[in-house]
């Protein structure tokens, strides 16, 4: 039988053990909580940087930037940018980017979307760790290679070379001639990490076929259209058909709103141009109004048919604006 003294000593040790465990538990909880807060704070800081980039893109065109951020994995979806559990939702975001941007640097590019008047700015974001392989011998292939920032990890080939795996987290093929045989060296990579876009068309308009790796071959996901170099670049930067279509739909929504304003503005210019030398201007405005109405109707939805209408009307409208300039009329845009 345990005597009274021995019981007291044992109880003391049990008490110390419980108190010690409580103290350790307390500090462990504090440290874990603090770690989570710190991680979330870093993610929020990166997201704030992305937000600032998106704001900046709206106010500056034809710029390219290389921005340093804490190393993170940024997920870009239709109208949503997220880093882990921290995300920001946008209703009409125009951001062409791969679905995953990895690393501690971002490369951003902005271009104005003009048809032929500026409707909005397009923002492109990607990572220098993502590998772009451009293959083509046409003028448009060379032009696109020149238009993509030099800071990118891009390779330009006139014909299909032997592709080696250089351990990039994602590889994007940009093909201008024919679809190439799937490179053997990339067969072991996950299917979602290797994608391709095949361009059929010129600087003005055309189609973009979205491919993805499936085992050791390519599978065609879907085909979309582009209008102008700006949206063609969008098809290159977006690695999924859905992301590209979503962004282009948002671009068209904005084009529709801006066109409404130009339609009303041109009507007012017409009303004011009724005397003397202004009568000639009236004809240009009248022709321009027809083209603007055509763009307005076609910008209701993003489709190949509407792109053809907008491209044709944009050319005619540019001609009418030139005529207005020649005859010293107030310009249409």
């Amino acid at each position, binding site marked *: 039988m345990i005597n009274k003294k021995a019981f007291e000593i044992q109880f003391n040790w049990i008490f110390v053990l419980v108190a010690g465990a409580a103290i350790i538990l307390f500090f462990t909880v504090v440290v874990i909580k603090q770690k989570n807060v710190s991680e979330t704070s870093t993610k929020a800081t990166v997201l704030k940087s992305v937000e600032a980039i998106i704001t900046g893109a709206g106010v500056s065109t034809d710029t390219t930037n290389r921005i340093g951020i804490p190393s993170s994995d940024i997920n870009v979806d239709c109208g949503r940018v997220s880093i882990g559990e921290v995300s920001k939702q946008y209703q*009409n975001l125009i951001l062409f980017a791969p679905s995953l941007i990895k690393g501690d640097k971002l490369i951003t590019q902005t271009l104005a979307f003009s048809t032929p008047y500026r409707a909005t700015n397009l923002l492109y974001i990607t990572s220098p760790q993502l590998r772009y392989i451009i293959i083509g011998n046409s003028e448009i292939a060379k032009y696109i290679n020149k238009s993509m920032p030099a800071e990118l990890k891009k390779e330009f080939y006139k014909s299909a070379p032997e592709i080696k795996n250089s351990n990039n987290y994602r590889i994007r093929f940009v093909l201008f001639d024919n679809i190439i045989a799937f490179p053997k060296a990339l067969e072991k990579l996950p299917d979602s990490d290797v994608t391709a876009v095949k361009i059929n068309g010129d600087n003005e308009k055309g189609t973009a076929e979205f491919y993805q790796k499936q085992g050791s071959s390519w599978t065609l996901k879907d085909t979309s259209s582009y209008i102008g170099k700006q949206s063609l670049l969008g098809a290159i930067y977006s690695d999924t058909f859905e992301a590209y279509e979503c962004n282009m739909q948002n671009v068209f929504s904005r084009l529709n709103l801006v066109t409404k304003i130009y339609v009303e503005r041109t009507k007012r210019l017409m009303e004011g141009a009724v005397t003397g030398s202004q009568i000639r201007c009236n004809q240009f405005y009248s022709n321009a109004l027809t083209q603007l109405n055509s763009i307005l109707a076609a910008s209701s939805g993003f489709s190949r048919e509407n792109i053809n209408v907008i491209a044709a009307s944009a050319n005619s409208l540019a001609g009418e604006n030139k005529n207005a300039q020649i005859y010293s009329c107030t310009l249409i845009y």
Partner: protein
Amino acid sequence: MKRAQIQIGETIAVLFVFFILIIIGFMFYVKVIKDNIDIEKEEMSQLRSVGISQRIMFLPEIQCSEDNIIIDNCIDILKLDYAQSIMKENEIYYYDLLEFSDVNVVQIYPGEAKWNIYSRKTEDFSSKFVTNVPVSLYDPASRKHGFGVLTIETLFK
């Protein structure tokens, strides 16, 4: 009282004081963090206000252009007349860009005029910033420039 009981009482007292000190330290830490968050929140609001002002200044819906070349700090009056109705009709679309704000263009010369191009306010705001930007007001019909002020009032919860 037995010796063991006194020892346990001492240990409890030490632990009590220890935890009191921890709690005081923790309260101080929370206070410092809260102050930092408030400062950061204020800075963020100011930054967002500047962002909104920039977005408004560069809206193709109101900006002047000559053969698609943008003229800085210039607002086209003809565009402005229709932009205010279009932006009101599509308030939800523009909320994404302009959030809770009130945007007015006031013409000072020649004559006085006022356009309210966007207004979406909230009652329970915690901070408010007003940005005034002097702008040139271009009337394409008469090809004359006027002078005005673009007032952007931004509200944040």
